[in-house]
């Protein structure tokens, strides 16, 4: 997924969007995707084909100075941060995010423009097989 501009992203069909929220000061956060409350779930998938945009809204409620740190991933290889704060003139702050879906090739090309190599959606990176504990300690001792 890549960042187009503030709170606007483009990702591949079926790509998983993860949202991290850290509340402080008694803040209560509510996440809605396309108008539906997703409760305690902190991820959702983009549509499997180029489709209408998906919209995420994060609402915060709480006493003065209650806050919520937000992280949207994976954006440009990392996490995009946001912050909500209950203030006197903004007692119920809210942030809206738009997620566009484009073809694999389009997203890859956009990423290339930004100098970022895209990770294919849903494809796991193959890790080297993990050595057993015994094998690891044997290697440490020089194979004796």
């Amino acid at each position, binding site marked *: 997924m890549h960042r187009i501009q503030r709170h606007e992203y483009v990702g591949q069909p079926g790509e998983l969007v993860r949202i991290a929220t850290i509340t402080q000061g008694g803040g209560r956060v509510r996440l809605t995707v396309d108008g539906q409350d997703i409760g305690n779930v902190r991820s959702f998938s983009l549509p499997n084909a180029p489709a209408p945009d998906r919209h995420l809204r994060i609402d915060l409620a709480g006493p003065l100075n209650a806050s919520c740190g937000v992280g949207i991933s994976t954006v440009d290889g990392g996490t995009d941060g946001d912050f909500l704060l209950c203030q006197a*003139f903004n007692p119920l702050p809210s942030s809206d995010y738009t997620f566009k879906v484009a073809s694999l090739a389009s997203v890859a090309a956009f990423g290339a423009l930004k100098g970022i190599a895209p990770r294919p959606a849903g494809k796991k990176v193959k890790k080297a097989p993990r050595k057993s504990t015994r094998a690891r300690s044997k290697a440490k001792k020089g194979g004796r």
Partner: protein
Amino acid sequence: MIRRILVFGFVALLTAPSAFAQSADSDTAAKARNARAESIDQMFQLAIRNAGQTKPAPVKEPFGDVVAIKRLLAMYLIAAQHDAMPTSAAGKLIDALLLRADKQLGATSPSTASTTIASKGLVPEILGVAVESGAINRDVKGSTFTFQITPMGVVKALQGKALLDIYADYSTSPAARFASRFAVSASFDTTRGTAGTFTAEGNQLSAWSLRAKLVDGRDPADYAQLWSELQAGDESKAFGKAADDAVAAFVQWTEFKDWHAGLTKKVEGIDKAYSTSKDLKKSSIAFRVALNEELPKLAELTRPASVKKALDDYVQAMTKVQTEIEAIYDFASKGQLLTAEWLTTRDETLPDLYTATAIYAVGLGKARKTDFTLNAVASFFRSKPQGVDHTFKTFDVNAQLDHPLGKVLNAKALLFTIAGRYSYLPNDTVAPGAGAGPSTPAAASPALKGHIGVLQVKFTLPVTGGVKIPLSITASNRTELIKEKDIRASFGLTFDLDSALAIVGIK
């Protein structure tokens, strides 16, 4: 056994001239404030918090993210309406928001209690500096100065001296929240020593105390369920819609779009500089300058009818939400509270009197409309007073229950109170004179040992203008603690029968 007949009396109290004056002072303080400046302060505060975030991820454009929030820009316009027309709906909303913020943050309006008492010496000078820096609060009642140390006041004073990070918000830190449970105060009686001059010498120290909250059920942050219900409620949804409509109206407003593009470009430069330098002080100063320069231009733009309507609807929706938020705060304020206090009272003629007090207060019932307070007090002298064999003075237990009874005909809600007090004096002892000073006799009349019980039932009828009319019946086995007799002897009462009958709806 009850040895005295029940005491019955009408007393008219002007009670809360102090409470009314205090609320009037707070109201005046809110209305007199520059709401646009407050709005800019809040945007500035948000930018600082944005810049300070590290988890779950840093905010890439801490300053740009603030000016992108059109709700904040809408509130600036509403704040401008407040400053231009304080009695408008926007003005009343802003006043309510600022008052709530002041209460929540424990801010007090600047003390209007002036004093003509001169001060002399190093300690008063240090105390004066501490008061000015906000490290301690000062209260003046007659000839007595009381200073109270507040933890957040100390933090702010240290931030002001750059001894703490000026951009950090310590109010939510665990250490600050723990420290806020304690309060230390000291009182100085300026009639002692060099009369009429505050010197803070030992003989002027008339009392000091340490108070600690042991159980605090009044933090609104602990009422997660209520905040969730607010969020899911109709008023919150209507508020969200009104906010979206206001944003949509701004997007269609050509003059605003041009102005906003200019502000955004200016702030982009600040974000860019900050991303490389990480000099928060320099960037935040530049940000405040940009806001101070550009936001007044927003207030000068000609607003289309659609924007005016959207802002009016936004004010209306936020007013309803604010009412619900107030209800949560009011409910939280009735949570259980257990405090312990150690008070040392210094009298010129008697040994120091130590008083240990435990106070429990809670709102009873589902809506917490019934107030219950219980306190236990034990007092003992530091050493044996002259002519007395023991240091232990008294043990008191007080309990009070207040319950609103609802309106009587057209009158305001009648308040029912039942209060009881039990005092145990194990020994004959001396009582320090009230407001003890040089004129107090060396040995005051002793209080005789024994058990004292007092029971009072009271109905209080609030009248307009802060006046309350209490009607009480008090019974006691001893008269030391009955106050009505003294007041009945020294007050007269003028009664306007027409007004009284009008209050209860009788023509």
